[in-house]
């Protein structure tokens, strides 16, 4: 369950494929068509090969990763999250590439015991019809 009024992503020419895939339940990451390096977020120039026309394509990834850090949010500076307080944000290294990191809510609740290296998998929240926001859930051991 998510509260109404959270900021919603505004897809642009570059990011539209990402949000379309998310709405269909899939996590993708931008990949440089020149050097095949994943980038979060994609930018104007590839951060790995520095090509000025990286022609990023969003490629499906496993959604599996490891927790590198986390914080328990007790006070939100954005609208729409107050009903969810406190909640956990995790800094996750995706399996596809060393140090490929994204941040999302951990949907297991605020009181779960966490450790560096804990395994997580992507999950999606739906704050509005047709909008899916990537988050994470702990993998069962």
């Amino acid at each position: 369950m998510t509260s109404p009024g959270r900021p919603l992503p505004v897809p642009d020419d570059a990011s539209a494929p990402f949000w379309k895939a998310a709405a269909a339940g899939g996590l993708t990451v931008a990949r440089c068509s020149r050097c095949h390096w994943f980038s979060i977020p994609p930018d104007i120039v590839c951060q790995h090969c520095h090509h000025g026309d990286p022609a990023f394509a969003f490629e499906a990834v496993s959604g599996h990763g490891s927790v590198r850090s986390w914080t328990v949010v007790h006070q939100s500076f954005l609208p729409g999250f107050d009903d969810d307080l406190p909640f956990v944000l995790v800094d996750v290294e995706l399996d596809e590439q060393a140090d490929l990191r994204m941040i999302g809510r951990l949907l297991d609740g605020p009181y779960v015991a966490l450790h560096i290296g804990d395994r997580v998998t992507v999950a999606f929240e739906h704050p509005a019809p047709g909008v899916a926001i990537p988050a994470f859930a702990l993998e069962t051991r």
Partner: protein
Amino acid sequence: MSGPFAARNEVAVVGYAQSPVQRHASQPLGAVAVDTARRAIADAGLDVVDVDGFTTGALFPTAGAHTIQDGVSIVSSNWLAEHLGVNPRYASGFQGYGQIPGAVALAVNAVATGAADHVLVHRALHNPAGRYHGNPMREAAGTMQWTAPQGYFGPLAMIALPYQEYVQRYGARRETMAEVLVEARKNGARIPWSHWYERPLTSEEYLAAPMIDDPICKYDCDIPVDGVAAFVFTSAERAQDLPHRPVYVSGYATGHPTTRRLPTHWPLDDIMTTGFETARRLWEHTGLRPGDVDLPQVYDGFSPFVYFWLEVLGICPEGQAHQFVADGGIDSDAPGAVPALSGGGALGNGRMHGIPQMLECYLQLSGRAGARQRERADVGIACHSSPHFGGAVAYSAHRA
């Protein structure tokens, strides 16, 4: 950058002024800035017409939706010059984080090259009405689309993630961070212009504070304030004829990480890797070594920066700053300890960015610290911002 600084100790700070640091000033920020600038120029024994250079870093460090208006919520170099009635030969603003070393570097370079003779460096910080970082955004466009819909927003969560990495990796305890706050507020409580004057903090008060972004509580963040500080820079030659003992700039270093991240995502390894490189540049540029520094004033806008700067500067080994603090290593009143927060820092003064660090170096090295004057104050380092985005300036009481 390689080799020693060509203008080492050739440019000096010759005067200063600091406004009261308060939650909300009774005058507009620009009026406080003009008054503070005039007082700094007079303190240096100069007239306004003598000042021909102006530099600052004007960033308004809010994540909120507050209006940016020159003279009201920020004060740029050109705004200040115009309102002092000066057509400057040189006016410039530093764009990045680490505004204080950035603005000082611009001033030092301008004096050393002859672009200006007397440069005023100022910093004006504003605390707007309403929540400082609260943002009513309903749509997240551009890079924000990758973090805000996910609930990741603002500088408190930003610092919570690397601090959590530090806590987990090295076993740092909350009771130890309480000692950082007690030290900063102890020193700030001795400074008449500080927001926290005569208001020290106890360890118990720190430990009782509610979490905002666990492991960050409200006392881990400097308090937003209205305040302005200004310093006058000139050549070491001209400084000899001015009233106060000059404090010389031995060099500076800044840096910027090359690993691109999500907005405000600052992993611990990014902070430390680029921070160590910045410190290495500082030693190379100044010819100093960590052991030469009496007054390493570490930046503390968020308390974990104290650990990070102590480590990148080589004051203690990586991962051991929390133990160094727990052992009394930064107690400004203990003989043999490193007075790393003797100027109170941002935690002990209010959100003046790197000004408290710079001001402490200036006051102590010029012998103008009054009742707080330290016996040994020959070399100081003023740090600002995170080690991976900010920088540091080295000051010397001696020209040679």
